[in-house]
């Protein structure tokens, strides 16, 4: 009998994008280290693969003013992950770090150091940034054309891997009697000449326990999927529904062979939220309440303004959508937020159609269109759903985002995880020590990424 496919689970520290219900009495700080310790401890006790932190580069603005209706503020990703390494033993430590307002030498040092300091638990979610708004906080300002951001990301990742590879595994000999600390006088030697980076010299961090930290990428476009297939270990994806998930899964996994990689070498992990209840009906009711807390009337108007790109403050959130069309030639009203639709006019039409069909107000419509993959039900139902998705090859697991900080994962850990363990699809204890072990990834490969197609 074939063993069932194993589920991978991760905990995403909640934050922006209207995930967090900060007005709940149980809601705690998004800055205090104690909150991160709580979530990490819960995740590790529940044998999760890793904890995941996002990144911030500039506070969001809306209508020319700092956006204040959502969680604002976060600590530095690398620094929190390094501190969490001190209070965890097995839990992977994954962080989003952008490839635009950073340089490879520093980022390579930081991830290699995190990997050393955590005995092999570091992971990097590679993202891009590009706009002038964010650039105002950094040395070069807006220097990168939007169309080049993926190219820079690919070359950035390639360069970082070259730096990680610049030390042999056994280079630190530390032979006190023989007087040999490093085996090779040329240790750390590197040279990279490319369109984005022309750097050379000596990398100053020895090869870390995982060789190369685990690489995440959130690729959705064709280009993104190809990049992930050539270079990533896991995709932090958006496709949570069963059919969409299966389609994405099949497509991405089919791209691996041309890089000499097997399906297990790239894990697909959608983000997902969850709401637990005693019964399905109870859970649905709670889920509705959570959505209403996440999307207030004011928030709904703000969301609408992102698409319409005009002041809609006179509109009633409990009333119908605007008849007017979005403004397409004015400056963007919302800044510092990814995921604004590329074709606002057709989005507006789609939304009007959805609202009409369902008799939805502005607020109800926004709640509908901003819904993410969510597991809603009793613990048994949620366990069954998660198991089903993984067995049906719609995902290899999920990155769970609680809506309450920091205790929002507690009930899930207590009631759902044991059921997954009983089903034989989730570990009852860690068997390996590194994040690569937990994710069932092969050892890191040295050498050029995308080697078989020659593409970088």
């Amino acid at each position, binding site marked *: 009998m074939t063993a069932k496919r194993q589920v991978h689970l991760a905990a995403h520290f909640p934050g922006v994008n209207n995930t967090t219900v900060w007005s709940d009495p149980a809601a705690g700080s998004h800055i205090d280290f104690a909150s991160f310790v709580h979530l990490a401890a819960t995740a590790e006790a529940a044998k999760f693969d890793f904890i995941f932190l996002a990144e911030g580069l500039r506070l969001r603005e809306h209508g020319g003013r*700092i956006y204040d209706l959502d969680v604002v503020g976060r*600590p530095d990703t690398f*620094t929190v992950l390094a*501190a969490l390494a001190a209070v965890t033993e097995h839990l992977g430590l994954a962080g989003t770090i952008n490839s635009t307002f950073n340089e490879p030498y520093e980022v390579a040092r930081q991830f290699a150091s995190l990997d050393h300091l955590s*005995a092999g638990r570091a992971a990097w979610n590679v993202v891009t940034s590009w706009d002038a708004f964010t650039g105002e906080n950094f040395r070069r300002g807006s220097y990168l054309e939007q169309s080049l951001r993926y190219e820079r990301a690919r070359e950035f990742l390639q360069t970082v891997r070259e730096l990680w590879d610049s030390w042999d595994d056994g280079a630190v000999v*530390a032979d006190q009697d023989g007087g*040999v*600390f490093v085996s090779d006088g040329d240790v750390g030697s590197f040279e990279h000449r490319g369109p984005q980076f022309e750097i050379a*010299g000596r990398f100053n*961090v020895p090869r870390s326990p995982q060789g190369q930290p685990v690489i995440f990428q959130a690729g959705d476009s064709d280009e993104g999927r190809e990049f992930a297939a050539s270079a990533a270990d896991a995709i932090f994806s958006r496709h949570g529904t069963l059919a969409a998930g299966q389609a994405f899964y099949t497509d991405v996994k089919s791209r691996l062979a041309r890089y000499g990689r097997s399906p297990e070498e790239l894990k697909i992990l959608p983000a997902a939220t969850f709401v637990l209840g005693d019964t399905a009906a109870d859970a649905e009711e709670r889920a509705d309440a959570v959505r209403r807390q996440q999307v207030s009337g004011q928030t709904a108007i703000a969301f609408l303004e992102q698409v319409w790109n005009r002041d809609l403050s006179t509109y009633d959130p409990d009333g119908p959508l605007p008849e007017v069309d979005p403004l397409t030639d004015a400056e963007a009203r919302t800044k510092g937020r990814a995921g604004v639709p590329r074709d606002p006019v057709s989005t507006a039409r789609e939304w009007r159609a959805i609202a009409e069909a369902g008799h939805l107000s502005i607020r109800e419509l926004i709640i509908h269109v901003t819904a993410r993959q969510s597991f809603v039900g009793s613990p048994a139902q949620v366990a069954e759903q998660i198991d089903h998705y993984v067995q049906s090859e719609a995902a290899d697991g999920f990155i769970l985002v609680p809506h309450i900080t920091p205790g929002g994962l507690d009930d899930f850990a207590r009631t759902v995880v044991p059921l997954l363990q009983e089903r034989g699809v989730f570990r009852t204890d860690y068997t390996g020590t590194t994040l690569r072990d937990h994710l069932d990834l092969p050892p890191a490969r040295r050498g050029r990424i995308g080697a078989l197609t020659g593409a970088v």
Partner: protein
Amino acid sequence: MPTSTFLHLAVALEGAGWHPTAWREPEARPSELFSAAYWTDLVGQADAASLDFVTIEDGLGLQSDRAEGPDDRLDRVRGRLDAVLVAARVAPLTAGVGLVPTATTTHPEPFHVSKSIATLDFVSQGRAGWRAQISARAVEAAHFGRRTLPTFRPGAVQDDPAIRQVVADLFEESADFIEVVRRLWDSWEDDAEIRDAPTGRFVDREKLHYIDFDGRWFSVRGPSITPRPPQGQPVVAVLAHGAPAYELAARSADVVFVTPHDAGSAARIVAEVRAHEAAVGRREPLKVFADLLVHLDRDAPSAAGRRERLDERYGRTWISDAETFVGTPAGLADRLAEWHEAGVEGFRLRPATLPRDLQAITGQLVPELRRRGLFRDGYEQATLRGHLGLGRPANRYAIA
């Protein structure tokens, strides 16, 4: 005159110790230099002895015996972990000791350094600091490819006006960098987060401030993404050997590490620092710490013998930029007392070998200083600013 009878004590942590051949000492742990356990042990010892803080060295290039670039030697410690992350890694496992990693101001982004140190302050509950250093090495600039620097030997700074200008510019950039970092630390007022459910506002945007810094090397808009740190302003330190660095310290730092070679030069350096403070209109005086490289043992001949062994392996007498003390903890206590009288408020001791010289500092020097009434018994304050007698500063953007 020192402001209190107590002197301040810090330890500078570097690899297996500051001496280039320290890694070959019997008690050294050279195979563990890249492990969390090694750093946790060292900083834990400093914490248990209630030292004011530890500094952690770092750089953006490979260590070398040559100033100009790599040396391809096999017999030296090579490789370093990122110091801010080492500090963060040990923070949850320590209680009182200040954590002062080194971070460079020449290539990194001030926005990233600001939030890193602010976050270190959060994860350590108010014990963060930062030693700001420049990177003048051409080989390190080549690791970034964003600017070129001339290759020069150390002596050239005095001889060559062009090189002197390059270095002056690096210090000027450092001053700008520290200014940006400080403004970003203040860019959130302490009570900016309001969580006002009736109006749906998580923050009061009137209490978030754009810093609008515009300078030669960068412009930074702000606000920070990270709220005001627990200390308000984490402690900024600068290592200074001469005028450009004294001026940087006077303009931008809270603590300056200096390298006198006797009590007389200690007094002269303190006077020079004060003169720079006056010249830039600084109100609150810098805390002046003297750096000392220490070889400590139970008696002077043993200490001298150990130093000799280290130098023999090195091939000649190894000279540091700091004065070297070779002797007993009691003898060192005499030296510290003498320099303290000369106006030096604190000492940053550089252990020649680790962990042995650190153990001598924490296990013997500290008790000796306490017996003489020169060092406090335990921690009296909870933050690094507190240990240094610095109050919590008001936010420059908050209207009183």
